């Protein structure tokens, strides 16, 4: 196997382990990008491993959101009763790095030659903004998406799980189809689509959930994608890349942080240029 850029991260894969690392550095140390964290790196690691082989379950350390990992990849999270039988472990390193390894393997961290220094003022301000957002008292009063509502569609939002209805594919899922039949057969959609339209919202035009970070980012961008499997969706563009978006351009969907409220990070799929 080899090193490559995967889902916007640096990735190195061997038969017994996968390493995913942030491309950004601060004072010579690896740091997370604007909307990344250990969970989004872990999702990327599992997604890549699943392209090569089947994994039933994995152990997850503190610092990685297990629910998001499962919703994004359908992988099971090992608990006390399944820990011994589980063959794969996720590990965190201090420097924005996640390792997915077969238990008992030897892992050698590679030296990636990609090094994207972040602006110190921007980096500090953004981390402070995320800290404010994570305050448990921070909650939207106008367009509130409750934890229950968020989790009800988590597999659809994070794993692009759609439904087969009337010979076509429906996403996001419906409670029933146009002929009042409940729940079609579940199907996972490819995370790739073409741009149908896009906009960049000024910080003043962004929803209030983004009010602390949008000014730092200089606004936020949203694309309407026609997914290769048929349905369409609207997605934020990743915060740490500024692609030159054009009509019919191909983009892939990756898991990133969207915003936080009530002390809980809301994850979702964001678009990045392929």
């Amino acid at each position: 196997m080899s090193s490559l850029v995967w889902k916007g991260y640096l990735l190195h894969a061997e038969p017994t382990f996968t390493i995913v690392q942030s491309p950004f550095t601060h004072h010579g140390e690896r740091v997370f990008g604007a909307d990344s964290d250990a969970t989004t790196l872990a999702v990327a690691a599992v997604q890549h491993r699943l392209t090569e082989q089947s994994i039933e379950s994995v152990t997850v350390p503190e610092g990685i959101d297990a629910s998001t990992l499962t919703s994004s990849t359908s992988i099971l999270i090992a608990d006390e009763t399944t820990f011994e039988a589980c063959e794969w472990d996720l590990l965190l390193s201090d420097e924005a790095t996640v390792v997915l390894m077969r238990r008992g393997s030897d892992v050698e961290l590679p030296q990636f030659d990609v090094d994207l220094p972040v602006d110190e003022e921007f980096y500090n301000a953004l981390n402070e903004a995320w800290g404010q957002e994570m305050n448990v008292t921070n909650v939207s009063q106008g367009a509130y998406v409750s934890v229950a509502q968020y989790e009800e569609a988590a597999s659809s939002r994070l794993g692009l799980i759609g439904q087969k209805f009337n010979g076509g594919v429906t996403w996001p899922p419906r409670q029933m189809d146009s002929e009042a039949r409940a729940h079609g057969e579940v199907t996972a959609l490819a995370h790739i689509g073409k741009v149908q339209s896009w906009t960049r919202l000024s910080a003043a035009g962004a929803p209030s959930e983004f009010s602390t970070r949008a000014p730092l980012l200089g606004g936020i961008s949203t694309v309407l994608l026609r997914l290769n499997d048929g349905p369409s969706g609207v997605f934020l563009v990743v915060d740490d890349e500024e692609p030159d978006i054009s009509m019919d351009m191909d983009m892939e969907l990756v898991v990133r942080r969207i915003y936080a409220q009530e002390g809980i990070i809301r994850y979702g799929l964001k678009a990045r240029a392929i």
Partner: protein
Amino acid sequence: MPPLRGVFMVDVAVIGAGQTKYGNHALGLKGMWAEAAERAFSSIDGDFSPSQVDEAFIGSIAFGGAQLGNTAALLTEHSAMAGVPVRRVENACASSGFAFRDAWMAIKSGEADVVVAGGIEKMNDLTPERKRYWLGVSGDTEWERLAGLTFPGTYALMARRHFHEYGSTHDDLVNISVKNHLHGSMNKLAHIQKEVSFEKAANGFMVADPLTLYDCCPTSDGASCVILAADHVVRGFTDTPVWVLGSGAASDHLALHDRPSITQLRATAASSKRAYSQAGITSNDVDLAEVHDCFTIAELMATEDLGFAERGEGGQFAREERGLLNQGAVTINPSGGLKSKGHPLGATGTGQVVEVFKQLRSEVESNRQVRDASIGLTHNVGGSGATCAVHLFGRERN
């Protein structure tokens, strides 16, 4: 088959209509509503008492949450209509367009003879931060809001796609902005009574690319109230009623991405088709239209969906200034529209009816009177097109 009951033949007219000035209003909910209601009552030519009202429908989103529950009962209590069966109607920005339709249906049903339809929104008493919480609550929150979208963003997606599919341009949108500001500059009840130059509108602050500040309506306070009556009681109130010729309404997918096309509002097309059919007329017969231009691209698409321009030719329609006051076959937004008259969400639908009522009775400022106006249209959209109500009005009955 049983014979049709006589009530189905009832015609409905607007006998009175009034509104507050839109803008940053000093009054609160109760004061604004009382002012609009009083203006509607006093616009009735003959004797009228609020005690004659059988039913009332008041549209509002209850922006800010100041009086989320029983909004309507509070308002009727403060406008001499305590005791009247009343309810708040909520369909986002189309709330009072649907309140009007409900009022029309109440009379059509035979259950009521005199009905109030109105709307209200108080938006500018909130801090900027709280205001931003409440803007954009009418899309498919779970999907669109998490994708960073409020309505400027949603309509920006529509605009860019329309540019791509049909070759329309931002200059076409600027023409709409300039026209509506011109119309609004002559309307004493408008929020923004100021003309804007093409150059200024073309170079406004970018809100959601490609839409600038001059493509977006303001957030306004305001209330509007209209009084409808059954044909058999109309003459007791006025000799110059404005007849409701047709009413159409429809809904569509809440989320933009679920619709097969984002360059057309299917709910508008379906609503207008129904209303035209009921009235027995076509778009060619309409002299003036108050259309829902929450963003300039919304007016461009509405001219197509309502049949004033062919599909894809809304840009050309705007470029040729065919909606300008008394320039073409139809005047679009002689009031200034949402862009200039203002957009107090729940009040907008019946506010449009106030304008058409006055235009058809030649009661607006003379410099913005549509010549020989005999048929008017109102077009009220909820959100990005999930709901829509279209009404047609005439000086003469069907």
